[in-house]
C-alpha cells in the first residue's frame, strides 16, 4: 500500500470520503467559516469519544475473520440443495466477516465447489442484508434496538428472497 493510498484511501469509496471531506471543509472554510469550525469541533469530539470503540470493533472483526473455517463454509454451501440449502447459504452469508475484498473470494470459492446461481445470490444478499460483523460497528453509533431491528430485517429479507430465488431460479 503506497503512502498516497494510506492518506486518501486505496479504494474509490474511501477516496470519495477523504477527498469529499477536504473539498467540503475547504468550501466551508471560505464561504461559512463558523459552520466549518462548529462541524470540525463536533467531528473531533465525536471521534474522541468513539475511538476506543472503533478500534475494538475493527480488532474484533479481524479476530473473528481468523477463526472462520473457510474450507468448511465452502464445503457446506457447495453441497447444499433445495430451498433449505439456499436459505442456509443466505444465513451463512450473513455471518461472513470482512469487506467485499475478503468475502467475495470466499463466495467465489463456494461457487467453484458446485454451488448454483441461487446459492451464490443468497450468499451475496445475506452478506449484505444481515452483515453480522457490522453489529459491533453499529453499536458504536446506534442503540441496541436499532441494531437488532436492522439484523432482524436482514434475516427476514434474506430468508424470503433466498426462498424465492430458489423457486424461481432453481437451487
Amino acid at each position, binding site marked *: *500500500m503506497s503512502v498516497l493510498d*494510506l492518506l486518501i*484511501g*486505496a*479504494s*474509490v*469509496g474511501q477516496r*470519495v*470520503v*477523504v477527498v*469529499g*471531506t477536504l473539498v*467540503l471543509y475547504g468550501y466551508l472554510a471560505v464561504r461559512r467559516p463558523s*459552520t*466549518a469550525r*462548529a*462541524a*470540525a469541533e463536533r*467531528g473531533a469530539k*465525536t*471521534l474522541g469519544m468513539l475511538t*476506543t*470503540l472503533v478500534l*475494538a*470493533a*475493527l*480488532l*474484533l*472483526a*479481524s*479476530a*473473528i475473520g*481468523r*477463526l472462520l473455517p473457510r474450507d468448511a463454509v465452502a464445503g457446506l454451501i457447495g453441497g447444499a440443495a433445495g430451498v433449505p440449502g439456499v436459505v442456509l447459504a443466505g444465513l451463512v452469508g450473513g455471518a461472513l466477516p470482512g469487506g*467485499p475484498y475478503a468475502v*467475495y473470494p470466499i*463466495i*467465489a470459492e463456494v*461457487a467453484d465447489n458446485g454451488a448454483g*446461481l441461487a446459492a*451464490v*445470490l443468497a450468499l*451475496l*444478499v445475506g452478506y*449484505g*442484508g444481515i452483515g453480522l460483523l*457490522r453489529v*459491533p*460497528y453499529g*453499536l458504536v*453509533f*446506534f442503540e*441496541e434496538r*436499532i*441494531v437488532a*431491528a*436492522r439484523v432482524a*430485517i*436482514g434475516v427476514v429479507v434474506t430468508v424470503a*428472497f433466498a426462498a424465492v430465488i430458489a423457486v424461481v431460479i432453481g437451487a
Partner: protein
Amino acid sequence: MSRLDVLVGDSWGQRVVVLGTLILYGYLAVTDPGVARAGLAGGLSTITSLATTIVAAFFLASAIGELLPEERLAEFLGASASAHEVVAAGLVAGLVPGGPYAVYPIIDRMRDRGADTPAVLTMLTGYSLISVGRVPYGLVFFGPHVVGLRLLIAGTATVAVGTGLFGVGALRRGT
C-alpha cells in the same frame, strides 16, 4: 461522559464490543497465540489502512449534519414523511460509497437532525443491501449477470422494507 465511558462505551452494547474484544484476544492469547497474533496484525493493518478514511468520515458526517436543514430533514424523513420519501432515503443510502465506518456516522447524524426510526432503518437496510461500492468487487469475481441480479434483489427488498417500515410507523402513530 466519564473517562470510563470513553474507554469502554456508555451503553451495554458498546461495552460488549470493547470487553468482548479484550476477552476474545485474552482467550486466544492463551489457547491459540498464532491466531491472536494474526488477528491483531490483521486488525492493526485494517486500522492503518482505514485511519484517514475513518477520521475523514467523522468530520464529513459532522459537516453534513451542520449543513442539513433540520426542519426540512424532519419534514422529509421525520414522523410526517411519506412512504415515497422513506423508500427514497433507503435507495439513496445504497448509493453512498464506503464501509460502515464512513456511512453509519452520516446516518446517525441525520437521525440527530430529525430522521425518524423507519427512515433510519430503511437507510441502514438500503445501505447494507444495495451498497454500490461493492459493485466493482462483484464484477471482478462474479460478472455483470450476478451483480445485476444482486442489485435487482437489493433494490426490490429496500422498497419493500421501506414501505413496510413506513406502514409500521404510521400504525404506531395511529395515523
